[in-house]
Each structure stands twice: as structure tokens, then as C-alpha cells.
């Protein structure tokens, strides 16, 4: 019975919501369209938490259900005129979430990462960058963490973790059986990958989802994000390194990482190096050249397609599931916003009575908790539209940075959930190495999560003080 519940709940509960009379909802003047969006939202939340279907499938389901039931070209009975009908969404807007600028930004990131892996830029960079760190375990760990973090700013956290663990595996094999250092090293990689993702807008999907809501005068450019994201990553990485090397000191006094290979010097490899550098530079320059980050992201897509660096076959290997997962989140946000539900629901709850600090703290802690048990992206998909609406309507938040402060805290919190093997794919991969037990991971992950959240508050406070947000 228990195993069927995860299928039953996502069908039953939204079904009940749909069948309730409008007057039962504690929101004034609620419309049918809003009621349907509530049902879709609850369905999405249940599916992302219980995972009866893959998380990207939930996203596709959101988009299709919105098209069928809340769009101007939906099923006939959903469009029947009624005083309670409310605002239906444009079907074109819903479909456009598949090609939203945010998705294009990620596509550009995927192309860069794929080309870098294909021409072994990643492994070769790792080899060169690791050299200066010598052979003392403590410093080798620092080197590994820094490189993992830098890579995960531009590549997927999972791919970076797999690559670095592959480099680390032969070293861990020669550690003595009861050497705690093994635990430290095996944990250092996923921690650094999770933390590193915070550094850039394309580092991890929650960041991109946040960007979706940071528009108009609240715009944060690629360079601006890195200006506060990278220092944050550096400090948190240093703290993590301190914790890991204290808790799990290595008994061996010499570690030798051997990474074989040489930098490729073929014309195509050189195109990859140049395009990679150029794209990042253009991103960092902000608006000087007139292009925004989304437009810049499509440059590597064109260059690598034209030069056949990314071929037809490579194209099939793109993580479409990640792109769809984010699209679904955008569509959910669109539904909440355009039907007016987000604003109405926020108005129905007397948030004005709460202290703004309680709101920021509460939302961030909730996000951190959720991110420990479910996908970071799904967490951001669910929370971000609500948080954005809340931030917009709460004027008492303004002295503390307003909507931007709230969004940034929640976004960073989403990346800090890393205390369990199920929290993130990098954690699962590291746990599979067999060197870490769940308790050790929980101890390290929970401390870094809490410290990271406190640091986020401090950072947002600083940004407010200097008048950035």
C-alpha cells in the first residue's frame, strides 16, 4: 500500500482541490484559472517531493497541463465563459518557456562544458592547476577543492564531481584502511562542487531560476553575480577546507596525483580554448558591448556547431532533462504570476504583520531544509515564484534589500542543501565510493549548510549597506 501512496497523492489531492467550490478557498475573488493553477502547483510539489515520476517529467506535465486547462487554446470546457473564469494564459507564452532566455543561457553553458570535456580542456587544466599545490595532503585537498569549485561554476556539478573523483580514486586506493584522510578527500569533492555552483549564474540551475525574477531595475548581470558569488564561494570553500582537514586529518604525509595527457594543439582544440575564454570575458564585461548574458551564451553554440566541434551525435547527449526541468519551473512561475494567483495569495496571508527578517530567515531555512531532501532545482522551481511575489508586495522588506535580498538568500540556500547522499547527485556519487558513511556526510554537510546560510545573510546585509541592492 505504502508504495502506491506516492502515486495516489499526486492524483487525489489536486483532484480534490479542483472539485472544491471556489468559496471554500481563503483567497478573495479567486477565479477558476487560479484554482486550476493551485491544483497544478500542488501536483508539481507532490511529484517533486515524492518522485513517482522523474523530476523533469513533472516539469513537462506542468507545461502540458497548463496548456490543456489554463490556456487560451486549451480544452473547450476549460474556456467556457463564466464570471469566475479569470485570466487564461497565452499558449504561446507557455510554450515559450522551453526557449526562455534562461534556457538559452544554460544551453550555451552546456556547449562550453561539452566542448571543454571533448577536447580535454578540463582534465588538462586540472593537471596544470594542481601542480603548485605540491604533495602534502592538506594542500592537495585545498587544490582539489578549488579546482572542483572553479569547474563547477561553468560545468554541471555532477560531471565535475565524476571527473574529480575519477582522478582521486587511484589515490584513495593506496591510503591505509583506517586513514580518516580518505573520508576528507572523498567529501571534499562533492562539497566543493555544490559550493562552487553558487559562483556564477550558470553554475547551477537554481541561480538561473533566480535570474528569471531579477529583471527591470533589479537586474543582476553575469559579472555582478560573480562579483559577490565568487568571493562567497572562496570564503565558504576555505571554511569547508578547514572543517574537513580538522575532522578528517590524513595520516599519510605524501599524496601523488597522476593525471596523464597533454594539451591538445589541433586547430579545433584552439578554437575551443579561444571561444571558451572569449565567452567568459564577454559575460564578465556586462553590457559594454551591448549584448546581455543570454545573447552571449548563444555565441559558443554557433561557433561549435559551425566548426563541427559539437556534432550531431554530441547534440543528442545534451542534458535536455535539466533544461526541461527549468522550463517547467518557469512555466509554473508564469502561471502563478499571470493568473494573478501569486499576488492574491500573498495578499490573503497577512505577511505584513511579520518582521521582514523572519520572512527572509524563514524562507531561507525552509529552502535549505527542502534542498536537503529533494532536487535543488525542483526546490527553487517551487519556492522562487512565491518568494518573488512575496518580496514584491512586502514593503517592510525594502530597508533590508527588498525582493532581491529575499531571492538571493533563497537561491543560495537552495545550493547549500548537501547533508545526505540523496541531497545532490555529487553527494550520491561520492557516497558510492564507499569511503564515506552517511553520518560523516551529514555532519559535514549540515555544518557547511548552516555556516553557508549565515554567510549568505551577512553577504546580503553587506550588499545592502553598500547600496548594491
Amino acid at each position, binding site marked *: 500500500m505504502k508504495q502506491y501512496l506516492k502515486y495516489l497523492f499526486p492524483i487525489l489531492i489536486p483532484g480534490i482541490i479542483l472539485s472544491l467550490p471556489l468559496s471554500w478557498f481563503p483567497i478573495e475573488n479567486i477565479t477558476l484559472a487560479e484554482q486550476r493553477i493551485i491544483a497544478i502547483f500542488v501536483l508539481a510539489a507532490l511529484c517533486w517531493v515524492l518522485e513517482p515520476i522523474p523530476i523533469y517529467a513533472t516539469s513537462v506535465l506542468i507545461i502540458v497541463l497548463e496548456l490543456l486547462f489554463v490556456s487560451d487554446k486549451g480544452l473547450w470546457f476549460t474556456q467556457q465563459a463564466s464570471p469566475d473564469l479569470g485570466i487564461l494564459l497565452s499558449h504561446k507564452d507557455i510554450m515559450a518557456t522551453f526557449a526562455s532566455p534562461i534556457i538559452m543561457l544554460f544551453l550555451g553553458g552546456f556547449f562550453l562544458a561539452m566542448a571543454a*570535456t571533448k577536447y580535454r580542456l578540463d582534465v588538462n587544466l586540472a593537471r596544470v592547476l594542481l601542480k603548485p599545490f605540491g604533495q602534502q595532503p592538506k594542500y592537495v585537498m585545498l587544490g582539489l577543492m578549488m579546482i572542483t569549485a572553479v569547474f563547477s561554476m561553468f560545468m554541471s556539478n555532477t560531471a565535475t564531481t565524476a*571527473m574529480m573523483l*575519477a582522478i582521486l580514486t587511484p589515490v584513495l586506493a593506496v591510503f591505509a584502511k583506517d586513514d580518516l584522510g580518505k573520508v576528507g578527500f572523498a567529501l571534499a569533492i562533492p562539497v566543493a562542487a555544490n559550493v562552487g555552483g553558487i559562483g556564477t549564474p550558470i553554475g547551477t540551475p537554481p541561480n538561473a531560476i533566480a535570474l528569471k525574477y531579477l529583471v527591470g531595475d533589479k537586474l543582476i548581470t553575469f559579472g555582478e553575480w560573480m562579483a559577490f558569488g565568487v568571493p562567497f564561494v572562496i570564503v565558504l570553500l576555505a571554511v569547508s577546507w578547514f572543517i574537513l582537514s580538522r575532522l578528517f586529518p590524513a595520516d599519510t604525509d605524501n599524496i601523488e596525483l597522476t593525471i596523464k595527457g597533454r594539451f591538445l594543439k589541433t586547430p579545433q582544440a584552439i578554437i575551443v580554448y579561444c571561444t571558451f575564454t572569449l565567452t567568459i570575458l564577454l559575460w564578465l564585461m556586462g553590457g559594454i558591448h551591448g549584448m546581455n548574458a543570454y545573447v552571449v551564451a548563444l555565441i559558443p553554440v554557433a561557433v561549435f556547431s559551425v566548426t563541427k566541434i559539437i556534432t550531431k551525435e554530441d547534440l543528442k547527449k545534451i542534458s535536455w532533462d535539466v533544461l526541461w526541468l527549468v522550463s517547467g519551473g518557469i512555466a509554473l512561475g508564469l502561471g502563478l504570476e499571470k493568473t494573478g494567483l501569486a499576488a492574491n495569495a500573498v495578499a490573503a496571508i497577512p505577511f505584513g504583520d511579520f518582521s521582514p527578517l523572519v520572512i527572509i530567515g524563514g524562507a531561507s531555512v525552509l529552502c535549505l531544509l527542502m534542498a536537503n531532501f529533494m532536487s535543488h532545482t525542483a526546490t527553487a522551481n517551487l519556492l522562487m515564484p512565491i518568494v518573488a511575489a512575496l518580496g514584491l508586495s512586502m514593503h517592510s522588506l525594502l530597508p533590508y534589500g527588498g525582493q532581491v535580498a529575499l531571492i538571493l538568500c533563497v537561491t543560495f540556500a537552495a545550493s547549500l542543501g548537501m547533508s545526505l547522499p540523496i541531497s545532490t547527485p555529487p553527494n550520491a*556519487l561520492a557516497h*558510492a*565510493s564507499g569511503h564515506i558513511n552517511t553520518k560523516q556526510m551529514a555532519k559535514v554537510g549540515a555544518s557547511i549548510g548552516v555556516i553557508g546560510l549565515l554567510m549568505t545573510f551577512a553577504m546580503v546585509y553587506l550588499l545592502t549597506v553598500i547600496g548594491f541592492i
Partner: protein
Amino acid sequence: METINIICVDDQREVLSAVVRDLAPLADYFNIEECESAAECEELMDELDADGEHIALVISDHVMPLKTGVQLLTEIADDSRFKEVKKILLTGLATHADTIKAVNQAHIDHYLEKAWDGQELLQISKQLLTEYIVSQGLDYESRLAVLDAPTLYKLIQ
């Protein structure tokens, strides 16, 4: 979760049981089948394939009446339905010529000599199953507990 099968073939009942015993740690995640002859294995593979189930690994003895292990594995290698199936030859009595055939024609993934070490058989099986799962695009996250982590790291970069 899709059913993924491991098929063990040996004409000696007690050897077959020993192989299955060594693979017991995998039993929660994979379906382990036992066959006492090549013909039985072929019939079973036919059936499993028709049911849409995955066959990840065949572990076969060589010296068997009617059809040898190398013959069986060669036929599996030549069958387009089973081109991805991983193959282990487990034998103590193969001649030099048989061994050459096993490599060149049956394209076996591993050759293990009797009497084998149970831990080694389990470890090799884990590696081959990991390769199969990644190459087939099956969900590896739910089976992490019994896959070979280093192999996985190399394959999913």
C-alpha cells in the same frame, strides 16, 4: 525500476549454485537466472527479450554437452538483439584454440579461470553491470549501492 537480468550457465548444478551464491549481494537489484545448458540459456534469453526485459550479463562455463560456452557466447555476440550483453567465460578446461575463439569471435568481456575467487567474480560483474547500465542509459542512481564507483566516474564525465 526495469528488470535487469544476469544469466549464469553451467551444466554442473553445484558449480551453478556456487556462482549464484557469489553474486548474491546483487540479488536485490538484479534478477539472477540459472541455466543448465546452452539451449536453456538461449530459450530464456529469447523469452526475456520478448518480455522487454534487459539482459546485462551472461556468465557461462565452457565445457558443456551439445553446445560449448564459446559457441553459446559467439551466437550471443552475433545476435543483434544481444549486442550490448556483457559476457564472462568461466572455465578451467578451455584449450588455447578455444580461448582465441572466445576473444576473437565471442568478444568476451572477461575470462575467469576455475577455481575462481568469489570476490573477484562479484567485482568484475559489478564493473560490467555498471558499463551496461551507463551505455543503455538506464537509471544508475537507484542502483548505486551495487555498482562499481570508479567505473561509473569514468563513464559519466
